């Protein structure tokens, strides 16, 4: 019995976790609209100056994708929705960059999106859906192909595999070995993990492996390649079981983005980026900027 072999511990800093992400890669970002986005990782990508990314937003995505677009990191977006419900029905940078042709949008709805992720997970070229037949989707997204199925001759839509090089996922708990637990359903994040080559998870809290073994049913998936501890790491978005959306902060972002996209005034957004993204060197520095009073005011109860 060798005493040299040891199970590898995977907890790393956000900086080390993101080193594997290169310009031009395809990344997925988990969560759902105003909840559960790995913001420490998102801000780290912007700090690193990543460019030309294909971003697979969640079904459906929020302003975390919008921020990456506004920061100049994105070439293509694959997401059935990018917005923040009543705070911003459509992401401001998503809207402007799409209208001006500065990003490509790979148009799809949620059902087609999951079909594409499933194809990637099963190493198939495509998965068929009925959804999209008769609509504008195959016309505006030429990757979606209408065809007659070989078994029953039905008209179907082939959705090609949607494959992340790296999946970035936010979760409540992770242990040192890459076991991941959500509070709640975890939205569509498992589908991201299954489709991706590699998964990085950012968690509120690291828990010991013994806790995982007590309730293995709660383990949503194992096999994260890196685990990053980032308390309040979904801020300004919500974290189920921990805190709610920071509405004033999101409004501050929307105001800054709108000033740039609607009035061509970059001051507010430059200030936002300096204060919240480039100024703080790490996630904990970011939390210092937000401040304890604001953070604790966001608790659910």
């Amino acid at each position, binding site marked *: 019995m060798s005493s040299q072999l040891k199970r590898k511990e995977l907890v790393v800093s956000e900086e080390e976790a993101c080193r594997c992400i290169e310009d031009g890669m395809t990344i997925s970002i988990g969560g*759902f609209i105003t909840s559960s986005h790995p913001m420490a990782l998102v801000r780290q990508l912007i700090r690193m100056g990543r460019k030309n990314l294909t971003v697979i937003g969640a079904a459906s995505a929020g302003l975390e994708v919008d921020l990456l677009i506004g920061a100049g990191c994105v070439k293509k977006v694959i997401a*059935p929705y990018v917005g923040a*419900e009543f705070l911003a029905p459509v992401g401001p940078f998503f*809207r402007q960059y*799409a209208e001006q042709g500065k990003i490509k949008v790979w148009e799809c709805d949620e*059902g087609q999106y999951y079909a594409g992720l*499933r194809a990637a997970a099963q190493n198939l070229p495509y998965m068929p859906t009925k959804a999209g*037949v*008769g*609509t504008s989707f195959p016309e505006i997204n030429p990757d979606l192909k209408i065809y007659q199925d070989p078994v029953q001759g039905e008209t179907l839509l082939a959705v090609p595999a949607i494959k992340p090089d790296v999946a970035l996922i936010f979760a409540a708990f992770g242990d040192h070995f890459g076991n991941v637990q959500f509070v709640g359903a975890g939205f569509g994040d498992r589908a991201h993990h299954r489709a991706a080559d590699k998964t990085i998870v950012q968690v509120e809290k690291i828990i010991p492996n013994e806790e995982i073994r007590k309730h293995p049913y709660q383990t949503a998936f194992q096999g994260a390649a890196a685990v990053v501890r980032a308390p309040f790491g979904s801020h300004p978005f919500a974290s189920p079981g921990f805190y709610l959306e920071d509405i004033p902060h999101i409004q501050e972002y929307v105001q800054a983005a709108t000033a740039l996209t609607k009035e061509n005034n970059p001051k507010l957004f430059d200030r936002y980026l300096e204060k919240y993204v480039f100024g703080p060197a790490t996630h904990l520095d970011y939390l210092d900027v937000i401040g304890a009073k604001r953070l604790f005011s966001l608790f659910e109860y």
Partner: protein
Amino acid sequence: MPSDPAKDFSRNELSAVFMSRLIQDGENLTVGAAMAVPRAAVLLAHLHHGPNMSVQYARTRTNLFDVPVLEPFQFLTDWRGSKWAESYYIHEEAYDAITKVTDCFFVGGLQIDQYGNSNLIGIGRDYDRLKFRGPGAVGTCTLSTMVKRYYIYLNHHNRRTLVEKCDFISAYGWGRGGPDARTKWGLKGGGPELCLTPLGVFDFEPETKKMRLKYLHPGVTVEEIIENTGFELIIPPEIPLTPPPTENELTILRQRVDPLGHLR
């Protein structure tokens, strides 16, 4: 008397009650994004006549029939609503069997055309240079293709929204019309049955599948509807008023579903 027609209600309350009557006990429903009035309708149906319904609530599935007062929420993801959960709603699994989780739903749009097609993609001739980029279809393409029946709900009734032909179709209603509009593509679901706006209720003529006025909301004239619709509506010779809520429905709506009065 609980089943007396109510006398004092807002247009949003009228719409919510009307929509709640479209939903039957035992059905499974979803409460959607940015749709306060349909949300109220689903929850009212559940509390008024749907003890066997299940609803998707805070990304969980649950039955709320015995809950005295539903707390208002601003975001679909408000986890405080999960305290009633009977099960969790894993998103990609829902799409593995969408008709098992959704019997009917409500869809909006940047544009709705005379055949009930919906556009959430954007406005403009050229997709690569849209005049107005929309939010995206969310799940409406799959739902409108597969689900038993659905309803169109609009927050605004104007010529910009109700158009002759959508610039892009993200949810297929009745296509370019005709009795085989959906069957010719082999679409699985039943299609849109009604369109509801702040001015009235509309259905689709069975042969042509063109939108037709069915009910006028109180205080609205046919002229007002024609003036604000960007295509030629079928107008029947006699148009009844939208049936009003009963006192009982309004009581449940105001006391248990919408205690803060957002619909008033």
